[in-house]
């Protein structure tokens, strides 16, 4: 029994990992773009972006998942779309907004003098961003990013509410079938291993970047 459950969980864990990976792939660049928006000197854009960030961070992720999944069919009378795609869209937007605030804090913390040093050396704005500020931003944001990314691991469990076959979904199904609760608790092992690996990874990254101070 235990091994059968484990096998099923590994299958579900695959879905958990792909929700995690796809969300990161889309949310990281999107977050950077949103952060540029919230720091824009163009007031209307800034206001719009700040409002979006407020709404997305203010509404429960589960609700956003439902809105993305059921919303289009309710509004436009079209058939319900793919649940995996809906999950990735909802998660990406949600996490992009959280990431954008981390990026913003990281970018705004760069001392003005760093940019001015680049300017008096005749560097272009793009060169200053890519060669001077970016690495300093990266170093500053690794710890808060690590935090947020670890939260994402566990938030993937929400996908079971729209019947994405990730690990919690399998655990619930099995628990119901065999009328025992232990499979649900057993899932914690998988999350702990995943988060453990990520913690090591971020620790390594921090160490790797410790050769300079910002």
């Amino acid at each position: 029994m235990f091994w059968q459950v484990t096998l099923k969980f590994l299958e579900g864990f695959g879905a958990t990992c792909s929700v995690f990976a796809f969300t990161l792939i889309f949310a990281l660049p999107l977050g950077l773009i949103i952060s540029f928006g919230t720091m824009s000197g163009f007031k209307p854009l800034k206001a719009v972006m700040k409002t979006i960030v407020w709404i997305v961070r203010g509404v429960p992720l589960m609700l956003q998942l439902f809105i993305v999944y059921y919303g289009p069919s309710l509004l436009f009378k079209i058939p319900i779309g793919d649940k995996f795609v809906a999950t990735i869209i909802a998660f990406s937007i949600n996490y992009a907004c959280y990431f954008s605030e981390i990026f913003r804090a990281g970018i705004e913390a760069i001392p003005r003098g760093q940019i001015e040093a680049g300017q008096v050396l005749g560097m272009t704005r793009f060169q200053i961003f890519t060669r001077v500020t970016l690495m300093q931003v990266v170093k500053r944001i690794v710890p808060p990013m690590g935090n947020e990314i670890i939260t994402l691991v566990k938030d993937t469990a929400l996908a079971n509410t729209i019947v994405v076959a990730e690990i919690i979904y399998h655990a619930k199904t099995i628990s119901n079938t065999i009328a025992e609760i232990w499979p649900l608790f057993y899932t914690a092992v998988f999350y702990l291993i995943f988060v453990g690996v990520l913690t090591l990874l971020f620790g390594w990254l921090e160490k790797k970047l410790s050769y300079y101070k910002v």
Partner: protein
Amino acid sequence: MEFLEVQGIYKSFGNVSVLRGIDFTLSKGEVLSIIGSSGSGKTTLLRCINLLEKADNGTISVNGEVIIDAKEEDSYTDKQIRNKRLRMGLVFQQFNLFPQYNVIDNLTLAPKLRIKENKSLTKEARLEAVNAINKEAEELLASVGLSDKAKSYPCEISGGQQQRVAIARALMLKPDILCFDEPTSALDPELTGEVLRVIKELKSGDRTMIIVTHEMEFARNVSDKVIFMADGVIEEMGTPEEVFDNPKSEKLKAFLQKSDEKF
């Protein structure tokens, strides 16, 4: 015609006018020191000269060529501004080295980017130019006495050493005029000497320099010309002897007395 001509520089922030008509000239190879109490506009003047701040009015020319004309400053393209900035160098009070690069890379980063940008170069020419830059960086580092720190990161060296690196970095771009904004103010007293010595050596190397400083002894020793600024105007200007030994205005007399009391 003088090497550097600064004429009628005005600058205000909102309705606070910080610079109210600054005029001076400087010959090639001369050193100008700017002294004055806090808030008199010294930093703002250097920032205008280096195009970090847009002057409201006035012109700055080097070698007869107008570099900055405040009236046209809005129409300068990014590329023009960058090229104009390269005529001037600026060493900051806080050094502003790039923390993620080691010392030698701090020196070579900007010049190498310029080579990379220059699309007309052949591969060989490019390689040769990069080699020249590496060689030059090593020489400059040696001239500020830091050859052994080439591979160190800014956080691993002292403030005085960081400032010497910053000076070498500014020299890599071969500015016509090198400006210093209180280069030793962020340093512990025992580290100011090594930085001032480097600046003095630059003077014998015939560099044209503008130095904002609170080090009166140093200003007296190194300068050909001294400007005393007060409330956004040049209150007094002359040779070090004239300014320090025979101050005319009451403001300068009071300022010198105050800075004497500090020691």
